[in-house]
């Protein structure tokens, strides 16, 4: 199954007013990989994620998600593809009027007909999987800390055992220990569930620790490669990003040679 593309983007163009964000962007995301998406502010990382999910209509190009054309495919097929994806939004975006358990059960209620006790048990399983204590289940999102909200958001994203998980800045706003835990959690879940992970992040530690490949948004397009590939790239922004002082610290912690290729 390796090598099969679960997401295939060709010639994507996005613009807001006169500002062109993406122009002729191509991207393949392979099954089972962890892809990190990085880029400067305003380069359209979140727009790219929203476009793949069908939340944003681009000006041109094609987007295929799990073999379904997100832009022109029929509504039923697109909805089916969407249920095979899980999304963790930046601040969790939990439904504030529901408890954590009900949040995790929301996709099950919507798409499946499961008996109540089974849903309760599955929700408890998901909540434990993301490392939340059992008593977090009956709580409302307002009663949780930021880190716990992220975990609860991840539990909801994993509710239907998706094939592709999108994470928008999963470690932003977490303390370094919490962020490292979260990285480990994503990696563990990815290994045991075999999901494909697309992760928008600025956390260099996450990039170094868990990403198989990194997609860099520069000049309205994307350059995909491993960490070592990007190290050799002479583009000024990529140079500054992967050779800055923070990058050096993160990569030496991850056991990579900071000056590799330069």
């Amino acid at each position, binding site marked *: 199954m390796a090598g099969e593309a679960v997401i295939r983007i060709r010639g994507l163009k996005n613009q807001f007013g006169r500002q062109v964000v993406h122009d002729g962007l191509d991207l393949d995301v392979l099954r089972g990989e962890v892809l990190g998406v990085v880029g400067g502010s305003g380069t359209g990382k979140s727009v790219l994620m929203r476009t793949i999910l069908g939340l944003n209509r681009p000006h041109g190009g094609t987007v295929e998600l799990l073999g379904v054309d997100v832009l022109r495919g029929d509504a039923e097929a697109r909805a089916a593809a969407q249920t095979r994806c899980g999304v963790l939004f930046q601040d969790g975006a939990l439904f*504030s*009027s529901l408890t954590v*358990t009900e949040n995790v059960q929301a996709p*099950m209620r919507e798409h*499946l*007909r*499961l*008996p109540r006790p*089974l849903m*309760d*048990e*599955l929700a*408890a*399983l*998901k*909540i*434990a*999987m993301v490392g939340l204590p*059992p*008593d*977090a*289940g*009956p709580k*409302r*999102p*307002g009663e949780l800390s930021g880190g716990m909200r992220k975990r609860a958001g991840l539990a909801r994203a*994993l509710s*239907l*055992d998706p094939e592709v998980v999108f994470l928008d800045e999963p470690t932003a706003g977490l303390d370094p220990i919490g962020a490292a835990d979260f990285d480990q959690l994503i990696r*563990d*879940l990815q*290994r*045991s*569930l*075999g999901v494909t992970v697309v992760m928008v992040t600025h956390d260099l530690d996450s990039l170094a620790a868990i990403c198989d490949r990194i997609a860099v948004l520069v000049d309205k397009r994307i350059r995909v490669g491993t960490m070592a590939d990007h190290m050799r790239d002479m583009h000024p922004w990529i140079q500054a990003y992967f050779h800055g002082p923070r990058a050096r610290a993160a990569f030496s912690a991850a056991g990579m040679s900071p000056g590799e290729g330069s």
Partner: protein
Amino acid sequence: MQDGPGWIRQAEADGQFVVSAGGVWTVAGAAALERAVAALAPGPAVQVRFDLSALQHVDTAGVFLLRAAARRYEEAGADVTFEGVGARMRPLFELVAGNEGRAPPAAPRRYPLAAAIERLGCTTVDGVRELAALVAFIGEVALTAARNSWRPRRLRIVSLTNQIERAGLNAIPIILLMTFLIGVVIAYQGAVQLRRLGFEILTIDMLAITILRELGVLLTAIMIAGRSGSAFTAEIGTMKVNEEIAAMQALGLDPVEVLVLPRIIALVIALPILTVFADVVGLLGGAAMAVVSMNINTTQFMVRLGEAATLTQFMVGLVKAPVFAFIIGVVGCYQGLRVSGGAESVGQMTTRAVVLSIFLVIIADAAFSIMFAAMGI
């Protein structure tokens, strides 16, 4: 991926139970799989082998159900071994095994009668507390206003004019339309009834008194409570949710001074002006009705109106406007600051603000009526 649906079977071979499962075991088919698991009949076996080599696709829900099936045999006293798990499925099994059976603590059992009594008590205590907090909030607003009256520069003029524009100026069209129609309705209903007594001309007195003393100001206040009081609660409440209020306090800004005072003062200025508009247009509506459908001409109407619509009648209505404005502003801002949590709370508090401010406005109106009656006005 042409995978078959999930199945599970039990067979007996060489005195051993073999349970084999295959097909797709995912959350999509979980309901049927759970029934299949429940239909297994764990016999009195010592050794049970689970043969999973026919499984095609499994997710956490599937593993959970397979383990639930195994647990049924274990509870019947058997030793369960899994076979054919494979390298691909093993991490999933470990993940589920490490995390299952951690259901949240069951909520304590509730007795309906006790719960009802408890709820009654909570509602009462909450109501009293809310009233006390509202009074405290009025005190806080008054103190802040008094403190700032020494330093008029701190009364935020820009914010104040902005609020007057939004709560006052922008409300003029709807208020004009509403009171014009009310004037028409009152004149029509009054004329129909009074004509039978032969006092059609008294319609004008009735119109003047109802519009000027009561309906002009009351309807304007109710419209403003729905229009601006709710906006105050929603704005301030959303700011509370976004931690903007906390940020203000951390920067040494007093939310009462920055947010609440300009809004209340804006309403206290805008509502009397709107009331004047409402009074005039209400009378115009009545006049239009009178001229069109009664045997009264414009001159007669003006003369009679001049006698009925005295300055006292007008002032009796107008004097209530600042009080109503204060009630609407205070309740709207107070409920906004009481928002806690998320979107649901904003909606709840906005509803409460509108209901409570209209209720209090009507109570105040009744109090004014009693007061004016006692004064003989």
